[in-house]
């Protein structure tokens, strides 16, 4: 299978992730969209790594996974704090900061 297909797939995944951020009101789902975008990048990295016939890209994917994990921790922490304060995780609700 041509690795370029994986790149295309990665792009589609990236777009889906972005769409999730744009469309979903639920903070967790939106956040998952971001994670999907990161993983799309991972897929692209791995695919390119394969195309170039070296492992740099794959190593990088590990870095990204680690960082993404840290991001999840922080992100969920914030979302939980918001939930505790407001009893909701709708992204549209906290909109006092504007203008």
């Amino acid at each position, binding site marked *: 299978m041509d690795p370029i297909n994986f*790149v295309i797939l*990665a792009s589609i995944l*990236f777009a889906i*992730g*972005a769409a999730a*951020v744009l469309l979903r009101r639920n*903070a967790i789902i*939106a*956040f998952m969209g*971001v994670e999907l*975008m*990161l993983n*799309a*990048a991972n897929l*692209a*990295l791995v*695919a*390119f790594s394969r*195309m*170039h016939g*070296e492992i*740099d*890209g794959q190593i*990088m994917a590990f*870095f*990204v996974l680690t*960082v993404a994990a*840290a*991001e999840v921790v*922080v*992100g969920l*922490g*914030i*979302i*939980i*704090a*918001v939930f*505790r*304060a*407001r009893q909701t995780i709708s*992204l549209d609700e*906290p*909109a*006092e*900061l*504007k*203008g």
Partner: protein
Amino acid sequence: MSFTTPEIAWAPLTPLLIVLGASAVAILVESFVRSPETRRRTQLVLSLVALVGAAGAAVVQWATLDGAGTVVLDGMLTVDRQSLAWQVLILVFGTLGTLLFASRTRAGEEAFTPLGASAPGSSDETLARRKGLQVTEVFPLALVAVGGMMLFTSVTDLIFLFVALEVFSLPLYVLVALARRRRFLSHEGALKYFLLGAFSSAILLFGAAFLYGATGSTSYAGVAAGISSSTGTDALILAGAVMVVVGLLFKIGAVPFHSWTPDAYQGAPTPVTAFMGAATKAAATAALLRVMYAALYGLNWELSWLFWVVAIASMLLGTVVALVQTELKRMLAYSSIAHAGFILVAFAGLPDTALSALPFYLASYGLATMGAFAVITQVRERSDEGTVLGEATRLGQWAGLGKRSPWLAGAMALFLLSFAGIPLTAGFVGKFVAFSAAISSGAWPLVLVAVIASAAAAFFYVRLIVLMFLTDVPEGQEDAIEIDYSPLARTVVAVTAVLVLLLGIVPGPVLSAFENAGVLLLGAGG
């Protein structure tokens, strides 16, 4: 497959290692020192020692730098005068920020909530406060952020760029959420900042992946080589480059990637706003500089219009929206968007001089920002019963501040004038060198827009000065404002004010230092 131990030049990494090491120690302190008071003091001392020590180490590095600099970690990091200059700058902001973090002295008057995870007004929080709990995790968080930023200024590898970005961003997201007062706003700001930040990191990463795919390398040098060797222009390269640049523009706060700025600035605890406003912009500018000069220089022509458009949009939007703000922190946030535009003005055309102009610009901007927010921490509202509340950030509340506290108001005026670029302040010299850089690359129309924006921007800076000095305290509002007196915050105000003046009147030494820093090791162009 043989395994070679990587050669690591440790010495050039000393400043970075000091900060990151200290942050590790700080986390241990956080875990093992029980008494809140002792813990706070230990953390503060540790942070300051680490930051000042790191700055000292960076200066030593600067002095003993071998030739143009050193490539460390197999090309992942480059330590040259440029990166050292930025590191020193970030360490200065870090030190000042740390002082501000620790500034609230009155018992229970700190800016941060003692229990970040608890709901505002919940019994947990009340209990925590009654127990005298004090938040101390801000210190390690700040140390990590500083370390990440320092890294950010020195990386020469796209993946490492992403890692560094996350290293300094994640603690900031948390810091933004920790305001003790106006928790809802704080949470909201943090959530927005986090979500958009993560979003932009993903974009940056995806762009990095594209560049890797197109050039087969993630190191800047490799990317640059790949760009110059690619015949024609590869869509993958262009898309990747744009995405990387956009990720960095997000951190700088340039239009249309600016939306987080006002909300995060306003929601965050003011000391965090100060630190974030000054340091993030500097770190992101440094990273953008290096990416553009070391990796994407070959795309100069293709990308320059992007800088033009984004610069103009940032200057205009930042200025016009700041004109109509009535919330002080928000106004400064929009002002920072306009300043992002000015930064990009120097960028357009990628002149050599930008490498020395921008550090100076960010130094002047950052110092004024730190100073201005430090002043804001000192102006507090008071309820009808006389209890001191949070910062008074509505513009109207600053009426007559010049009478209440001439020195504080004077310092604020100085910072505002520096923002506006009035001569004899650092901001003027900063604008001058930035505009010089732009004009040297022929971008004078951009400079013309910049000066028009500056003139319009002067209006809202001046409006605050009018309020402070030329307007009387409103009738019956004499007791509505409490001027805090915190030695640490005052120190920050004094130091930044003196530096803003010094850099405005005798900027020579600093200018020549940055001139030395204006050469990149491994620059692809220039």
